[in-house]
């Protein structure tokens, strides 16, 4: 029997993509996660611009994760210029990044993904029967957005962010009012996780090559070395020694693979599996309570892992605000110089790489940007193929929904991946 599935415009994802699937008998003959988002060619127009302008520009790669792009970009520039942020400045960067994790994860978990598990077309419909959960999700999301705005100036495309730090560091008393809301959020995330753990989670497992950052002593958010479940540990500047991008005809976003091990997975599952011990005791306990024990190999459990990371990010933001002292200077500076620099950070969807070559005037000669969703494309296709094969008797309508749900396991950010 033949089943052909075609979804021309995927919904509840960020950006434009399609799914095409052809199953014949027991075989999945075609599986395509095709991205047709028109390329805006950031790496093209960044060339010739000064490094200081790049931070405002790369924010525009993504409306959901501008701080991730600003962070990876700034770190690459700082690497090239020989600057290193530490103490309060570095903590402030981690704090605004926590805000982005909170708003982005809350958006995905409650508004975009949870409706799949309960058979709703969207969160607004889900709210008719689960109003409390949706309201809770929106309030957690708002706490994240408030944090980004207070540190960065606005929720989307923060303009206080710059190479070397911030144009202006917030006064401690501006951040303090957030403590109450974040204390509430820490509690709410635990309640949310208990609710999420009761969702019907489809069964599907396979072996993945997990890739994430790792920074001993903290869960990876804003910096770290690149580690893999195959035991590699790489400096950011060595990333392209082991990984490469390649073009496929049906996607405007480049795919990526490990040069010897092939497809790999970045994002919550990889971070969780490679950094479980770095979570806070409360987050670890909540994870175990939700039935998560590393290694998690079921991609449908990513919604639970996001719930755990949401809890961690709220706790971490609270910790950073309580310890916050206004930096003596809001940013570090260095004279223009020629060089290369590399920056990596953990966008909510996974590892985000930026690499730049600068000339003696501080202008960009070459830019390389590798977002998480580009890296996950091949893994998403393999998941959809495997899940479709295992569930081919479901009937076309249900199978289509399950395949779309499995794409959303990755919280794809398509504008970002094509850029």
């Amino acid at each position: 029997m033949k089943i052909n599935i075609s979804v021309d415009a995927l919904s509840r994802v960020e950006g434009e993509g399609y799914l095409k699937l052809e199953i014949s008998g027991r075989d999945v003959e075609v599986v395509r996660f095709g991205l047709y988002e028109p390329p805006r060619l950031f790496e093209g127009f960044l060339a010739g611009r000064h490094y200081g302008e790049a931070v405002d520009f790369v924010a525009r790669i993504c409306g959901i994760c501008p701080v991730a792009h600003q962070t990876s970009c700034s770190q690459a520039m700082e690497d090239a210029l020989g600057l290193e942020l530490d103490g309060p400045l570095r903590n402030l960067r981690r704090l605004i990044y926590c805000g982005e994790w909170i708003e982005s994860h809350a958006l995905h978990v409650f508004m975009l993904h949870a409706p799949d598990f309960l058979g709703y077309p969207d969160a607004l419909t889900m709210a008719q029967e689960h109003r409390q959960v949706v309201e809770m999700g929106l309030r957690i999301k708002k706490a994240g957005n408030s944090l980004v705005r207070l540190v960065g100036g606005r929720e989307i495309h923060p303009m206080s962010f710059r190479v070397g730090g911030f144009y202006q560091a917030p006064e401690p008393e501006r951040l303090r009012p957030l403590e109450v809301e974040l204390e509430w959020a820490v509690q709410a995330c635990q309640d949310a996780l208990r609710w999420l753990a009761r969702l019907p989670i489809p069964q599907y497992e396979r072996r993945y090559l997990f890739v994430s950052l790792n920074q001993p002593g903290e869960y990876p958010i804003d910096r770290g070395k690149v580690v893999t479940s195959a035991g590699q540990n790489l400096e950011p500047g060595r990333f392209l020694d082991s990984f490469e991008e390649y073009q496929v005809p049906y996607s405007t976003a480049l795919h990526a693979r490990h040069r010897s091990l092939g497809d790999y997975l970045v994002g919550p599952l990889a971070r969780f599996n490679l950094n479980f011990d770095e979570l806070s005791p409360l987050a670890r306990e909540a994870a175990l309570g939700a039935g998560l024990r590393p290694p998690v190999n079921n991609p449908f459990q990513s919604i639970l892992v996001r719930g755990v990371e949401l809890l961690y990010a709220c706790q971490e933001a609270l910790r950073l605000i309580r310890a916050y002292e206004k930096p003596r200077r809001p940013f570090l500076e260095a004279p223009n110089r020629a060089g290369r620099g590399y920056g990596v950070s953990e966008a909510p969807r996974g590892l985000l790489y930026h690499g730049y070559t600068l000339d003696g005037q501080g202008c960009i000669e070459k830019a390389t940007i590798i977002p998480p969703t580009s890296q996950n494309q091949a893994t998403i296709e393999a998941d959809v193929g495997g899940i479709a094969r295992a569930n081919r008797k479901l009937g076309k309508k249900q199978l289509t929904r399950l395949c779309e749900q499995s794409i959303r396991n990755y919280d794809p950010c398509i504008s970002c991946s094509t850029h």
Partner: protein
Amino acid sequence: MASKLKLAVWKFSSCDGCQLSLLDCEDELLALTGAVDLAYFLEASSAAKPGPYDISLVEGSILTAHDQERVRQVRADSKFLVAMGACAVSGGLQALRNFADVNTYVKAVYQNPGRVETLATSSPISDHVEVDMELRGCPVSKDQLLEVVVALAQGRKPDLAGGSVCLECKRAGHACVLVSRRAACLGPVTQAGCGALCPGYGRGCFGCFGPRQQANTASLAGVFQRRLGLGGRDLARVFQGISCNADAFAQESRQHEDQH
């Protein structure tokens, strides 16, 4: 009560930030769906209702022939079309290709550039279809977005900020960054709407809301030359940012681009 207004949200080439602003209305979102029917909003819902729509919010610029066709269809299906954000209004940051050879850019990204279908320029929605209203900003202001939707639902004219960022800045009582920090600030020629955010953080405005009416960019460029010693490429680049393809900024930057 009259039937709810049917609202559609469309994406062209963009970062998604402007439509995300709608989902960022955390306090108002559930109430909003009581007042308008979110009939087509793919980022938020899998339930897509067919047109016609009372209001279409259109995000993004046009970069492909396919999207040229698609935006015509959107226009045909919409009673009132709002171009939402800098990409839709003026072509966005990606319109930097309009000042260069796009093939150079494509080659910088793709090994097989021939497989990539894209137009030589990034153009605003109004180059292709009639636009009923523009909502400026990169991203748009959440308050302005809500005001437009609510005003249209109530059948009145939306009340949007007029004047320049410079005026907002004076009202907010910020020190002038052009004078005190020697920052190249586009505030005097940029439309109000953000609340003078950048000067408030001690940096120059970089034109997210695009040129205001009768923007005297030549006069400001003269100030940048005399006070800041900017010229040639460096001066052109100040205008070649988020709103680079908006007429006043594009023309001003071209004046300086080839001068060294």
